[in-house]
């Protein structure tokens, strides 16, 4: 087997060829040194940011194929959207309604902006949550759903519908209370099970937590299937309401929903950004890290709470987005980067872009009269990429 070139000179020699005494470059491709350099990483991160921004602006103009806005019109609407709160605050004579009425597509742009923001941020946080879980469990295919978050959210929706019945549509704020509480309870049960299992091993048992989470998900899944079968007998439309809530067919953009969503995003993303360097410690051995003065058990707990909350927020506000949270962090770590902060940024940006792109595709499909759940489109987009990554790697595990 050929030896892998070790030094820069050896690698350079491998990429070049001497023909008739003169050296020619065999392969016109970036060197490994360049691809591993900080300069390239900065360029790559910037390109990704620009791509995300471009898609976001595109979604504001072309969210539905039959109702496209000129960029100038969208720009005017956005300017008004951001300036109205300030002008209303500082200028008592300012007439905000008149400005809104003077812009015929204002309301649509605001709605599109909120929808795009929810889609993008949901993709960001679910992928960042996935990155956290993969780091905590030292497993490249771990996902926040392992601890029963999605089952918890589904339970929340079930209890919400059971409690309010057909009136559920007019008590959407309470839905958040039900869903967040149910998800928190199930994740807490999984944590406690991990803690109990860990007592025998003088610590926190990752395996125990995963097994408890899987058991909860399985048991919950059985109950949810039974509930859906029962709902099929119901002719009042509760099944459709349940499927609509769980599938994320509608992104709620009312003021309460936006406040809850943005608050939860901030509460999870800001601590994650702050501890992004320290969080690398959980990927290493606990004893080694303790000898460095780092408490891995505490970090892991913070990560589990943040990651679970991230997945819960995305599931409640954007519905089931397939296996985005597992595939994207796995692919980013596999192909591009390992350091937690970098992987989280890349996974978050790519997840946000894919989530937003999927929503744009769905709105275009809806415009021609079809309805497709977001999870289906996401899976169709990601599955081939995931398979290619695994095939190129050779196996899922290192």
């Amino acid at each position, binding site marked *: 087997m050929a030896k892998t070139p070790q030094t820069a000179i050896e690698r350079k020699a491998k990429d070049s060829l001497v023909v008739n005494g003169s050296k020619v470059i065999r392969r016109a491709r970036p060197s490994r040194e360049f691809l591993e350099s900080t300069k390239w990483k900065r360029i790559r991160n910037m390109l990704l940011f620009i791509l995300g921004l471009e898609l976001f602006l595109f979604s504001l103009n072309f969210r539905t194929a039959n109702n496209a806005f000129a960029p100038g019109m969208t720009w005017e609407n956005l300017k008004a959207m951001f300036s109205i709160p300030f002008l209303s605050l500082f200028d008592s004579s300012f007439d905000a309604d008149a400005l809104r009425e003077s812009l015929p597509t204002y309301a649509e742009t605001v709605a599109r902006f909120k929808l795009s923001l929810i889609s993008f941020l949901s993709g960001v946080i679910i992928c960042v949550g996935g990155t956290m879980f993969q780091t905590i469990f*030292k497993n490249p295919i771990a996902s926040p759903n392992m601890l029963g978050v999605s089952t918890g959210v589904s339970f929340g929706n079930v209890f919400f519908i059971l409690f309010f019945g057909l009136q559920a549509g007019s008590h959407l704020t309470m839905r958040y209370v039900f869903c967040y509480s149910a998800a928190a309870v199930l994740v807490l049960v999984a944590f406690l099970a991990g803690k109990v299992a860990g007592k025998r091993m003088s610590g926190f048992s990752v395996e125990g937590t995963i097994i408890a989470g899987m058991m909860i998900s399985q048991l919950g899944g059985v109950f949810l299937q039974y509930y859906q079968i029962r709902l099929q007998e119901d002719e009042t439309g509760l099944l459709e309401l349940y499927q609509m809530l769980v599938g994320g067919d509608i992104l709620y953009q009312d003021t309460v929903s936006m406040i809850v969503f943005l608050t939860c995003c901030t509460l999870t993303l800001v601590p994650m950004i702050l501890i992004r360097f320290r969080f690398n410690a959980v990927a*290493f051995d606990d004893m080694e890290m303790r*000898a*460095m*003065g780092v408490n891995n058990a505490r970090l892991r707990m913070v990560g589990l709470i943040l990651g679970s909350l991230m997945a819960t927020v995305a599931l409640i506000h954007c519905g089931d987005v397939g296996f985005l949270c597992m595939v994207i962090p796995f692919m980013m770590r596999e192909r591009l980067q390992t*350091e937690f902060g970098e992987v989280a940024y890349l996974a978050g940006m790519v997840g946000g872009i894919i989530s937003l792109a999927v929503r744009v595709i769905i709105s275009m499909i809806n415009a021609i009269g079809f309805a497709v759940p977001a999870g289906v489109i996401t899976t169709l987009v990601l599955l081939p990429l995931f398979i290619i990554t695994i095939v190129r790697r050779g196996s899922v595990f290192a």
Partner: protein
Amino acid sequence: MILELNDLCCGYNGKAIIKDIRVSVGSGDVFCILGENGVGKSTLFKTILKLIPPISGKVNIDGADISGWSAKKMASYCAYVAQSHTPPFPYSVREVIMTGRMGKINAFGRPGKKDEEIVDGLIEEMDLRDYENRPYTELSGGERQLVMIARALAQEPQCLVLDEPTANLDYGNKVLVLNTLQRLANRGMTIIFTTHDPEQALLLNAKTLVLFRGRPPLFGSANSVITEKNLKRAYNARIRVVEVLDEETFQQVRVCIPMLGGEENRT
């Protein structure tokens, strides 16, 4: 720095595994712990690193009892290099070394200019410049061990504690690691390590602690402690200790050779 183990008794859940350890090592000393598998070398390590509490006795650093020290304070004195290390993700060499700075950086902080400079210096010192951006998982065993030592040094400790640093390494890599340890000791760092090769203690002229199963431990210079009789007791095997002449330095070097067969080895 002076590390003292005073009548130390170590074990788990009140059950002693090793006892009556009396050791004193200072700056620039190499301290080697020998003993058969399961005799309590790792337990002693964990006690020295304050990862488990002693059953009785004390571990003192510079005269102070470490039992009340925080993990962070302990990390500023002693750094630990684990026996084998396989991270689940392909961190680059630079990133692995940088994790050694974690104890020095605020929980919400990022590596600053000083941290980058320290890591750069260690990369130069360990001759890892060609590998600094390469995945740690792609390195050879010896290179990995150097990265782990560099990571431990990034803590800026006064004492380096290594658990079998040459386990699973070929001769070339063993020499590479031992030379590095010798260099660090010459610089004034205290080196504590375990090994299953007694001649490493002889090569490094280490203060040596030999742990026996069911007998009190022996502590002294490598030359006085590593004898055929003590090795027989420690490993229950016939091991010859012979002197050979190093033709480059013209110095007598003692080496240990395990002997096959014989009545003693059938116990």
